[in-house]
């Protein structure tokens, strides 16, 4: 890095190239790909937002949260109640309070309100729980997930209880998820590299040493928890307007473990790792799901074995954990500025001589 003649792109240029490449890819998918591929990309981007924001608490701050899907539920229900067309509201949610019954918002404000509400809940819950450490936080946040679920099931007038919440308008498209994915990655990337992020990592790596330096453990954890709750709720809103009908049971353990698997596979404490984990697992699961229906390899025909994809995924995950317990990326990041530098190899050779 000290080499004055380095031909790396500047961070700004790298960022611009990446953003341009990302949206170019999205345009390609939006106009060129089948709606099946588009659906996969939308689901994948939502997973990226979930995993990257979970990473801020679990990976960077060391607070292992099992309750994030609760924030996703808050975002999904809040935004869905706000965007539901008025006629549908009368039919499906007749017991809403009057001011809500007559409110219909656009997608963006509804999503933002969902995110802010989740942030508020995260603050109120976090004030007491972020004082805990280690496995205790895990148990407490799991309790949070259960509380959210019980409230959703019983708050009939707002959520239709355990019944299917349907009729949500299909607002989520490639551009919305793409935009929010870019915003999430950028904000959390900058956050992790700010002095706040450094304090968070210090707390994760050695809490006592960090405290002795004057870092407020509670405040930093609370900050990470609230920011990540916001983006998790945004992902919830995107998912709600993508799937269009759901019930509280969608926001429970299955989804929780799905994003934790992506987080650990990619590497806790690495944003590019989170992206790789989400992309890799989503695409692998989709390939295996198609493959388990039976494959004709020309010389041999493999009959369909339903459920095989889940088993293979589990085996791959176990192998990964044995040989790379820190995940694919560990705590490192992809260095895109190096990726775009052409003289890299030559320099390396020069350096080794």
């Amino acid at each position, binding site marked *: 890095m000290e080499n004055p003649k380095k031909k790396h792109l500047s961070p700004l240029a790298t960022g611009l190239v990446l953003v341009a490449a990302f949206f170019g890819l999205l345009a390609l998918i939006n106009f060129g790909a*089948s*709606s*099946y*591929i588009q*659906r*996969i990309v939308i*689901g994948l981007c939502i997973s990226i937002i979930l995993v990257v924001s979970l990473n801020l608490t679990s990976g960077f701050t060391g607070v292992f949260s099992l309750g994030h899907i609760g924030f996703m539920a808050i975002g999904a229900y809040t935004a869905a109640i706000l965007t539901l067309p008025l006629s549908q509201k009368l039919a499906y949610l007749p017991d809403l309070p009057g001011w809500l019954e007559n409110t219909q918002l656009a997608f963006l404000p509804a999503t933002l309100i969902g995110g802010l509400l989740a942030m508020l809940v995260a603050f109120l819950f976090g004030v007491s729980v972020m004082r805990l450490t280690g496995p205790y936080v895990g148990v407490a946040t799991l309790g949070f997930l259960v509380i959210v679920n019980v409230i959703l*099931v*019983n708050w009939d007038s707002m959520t239709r*209880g*355990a*019944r*299917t919440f*349907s*009729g949500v308008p299909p607002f989520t498209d490639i551009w919305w998820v793409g935009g929010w994915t870019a915003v999430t990655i950028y904000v959390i990337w900058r956050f992790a590299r700010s002095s706040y992020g450094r304090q968070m990592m210090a707390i994760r790596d050695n809490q006592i040493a960090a405290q002795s330096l004057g870092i407020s453990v509670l405040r930093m954890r609370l900050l990470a928890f609230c920011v990540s709750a916001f983006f998790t709720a945004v992902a919830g809103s995107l998912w709600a307007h993508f*799937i*269009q*009908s*759901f*019930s509280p*049971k*969608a926001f429970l353990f*299955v989804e929780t473990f799905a994003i934790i698997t992506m987080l650990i596979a990619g590497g806790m404490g690495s944003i590019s790792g989170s992206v*790789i984990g989400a*992309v*890799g697992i989503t*695409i*692998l699961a*989709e*390939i295996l*799901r*198609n*493959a*388990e*229906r039976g494959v004709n390899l020309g010389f041999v025909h493999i009959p*369909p074995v*339903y*459920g095989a994809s*889940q088993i293979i995924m589990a085996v791959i995950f176990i192998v990964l954990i044995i040989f790379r317990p820190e995940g*694919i*990326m560990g705590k490192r990041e*992809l*260095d895109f500025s190096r990726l775009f530098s052409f003289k890299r190899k030559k320099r390396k050779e020069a350096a080794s001589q």
Partner: protein
Amino acid sequence: MKKSILVTIFLVIAILATACGGKAPGGANAPIKIGVIYNVTGGQASLDVPSNNGAKLAAKEINAAGGVLGRPIEIVFYDGKSDATVIGNAATQLAESDKVVAMMGFSDSDMTLAAAPIAAKAGITFVTSGATSPKLPDQVPDYLFLACFGDNVQAAAGAEYAFNTLKYKTVYLLTDQGSEYTKLLSKYFKERYTELGGQVVLEDSYQTGDKDFSAQITKLKGASTQPDFLYIAAQPDDVGTAVKQFRDSGIDKAIMGGDGYDTPLLVQIPGKGATNVYFTTHSLMDKDVGTEAVKKFINAYTAEYKTAPENAFAGLGYDTMKLLADAISRAKSTDPKAIRDALAATKDLPGVTGQLSYLPGIRVPQKGVSMILVKDQKLTLAAEVVPEKIPAP
């Protein structure tokens, strides 16, 4: 680092290849493709595996008899994995790359609503074999049909049978608050029963998965008026436990419920307590006392899968496939629109789970309800009920 990028690129190429492959040739004798999605893995498997087996058996029988319009039926099957996102993807594949002429599947409202709107958008009919919410068709205009009766029908059948035939004038109503199915069932039952003149002396609730009903039982025993019978709206997993605990506490009044009771657990868990229990379901899957159609179905199913049909959902899957085949043959075409119109005009189609007709504009079928009486751990057919009046969905 470079390696992981290469791996990602490879994966993307692989998925594109998988998605684009597999185009079938057309032609006069080309198979008619019907899309089937069931959750053969995950939480819904206990209902969906029998349904799927039933559908496969029906297709096999139809093909053995010469197919439909002289063409064989080909099932294009996807596992929904009890996951709404996967189901949405699978429905998209069925409509887009497999080009099926109709779709069927599911025993759950959420799952049905994850797939049916996608089918409808592509102009393809979706028939759910076992999701009994009568509110479903309104949520997907024109293209979503039920092949089973709605919960309002079975609840009304239960209420009328209790009030008119059994002469029970008062009821204790217990509802699982954790699912749309039980909440609706209980709501429709109460509506019809009070309309008839019956009285609800006490209402109580519990949550899906509760293992202890002692609080509810104590409350019931302390009630000033004791009811003539108990209506418990429960899901399959909780039915056995609920019946056992009420019986163990000495309550021997009749207990009634919906098709959630159609599980072996109803007899296995309460043991001797499994008596004087009534429930409404699609048909009695018993080869000794069932109808001729049921007996024939049980024999064919047993020969194919080496096990008797697990529950009535096997019959529903079977009937749904036959329903679609019937619609295609009457449409004399594989055009999805023509199939939809023919399906909507189905009249008196015999099936394992009873005769099926759709009234004009209503996509929940007119179907008889089987009232089952469990007596000394044995299931018997108490009556075939067609309710006189059905609560609005």
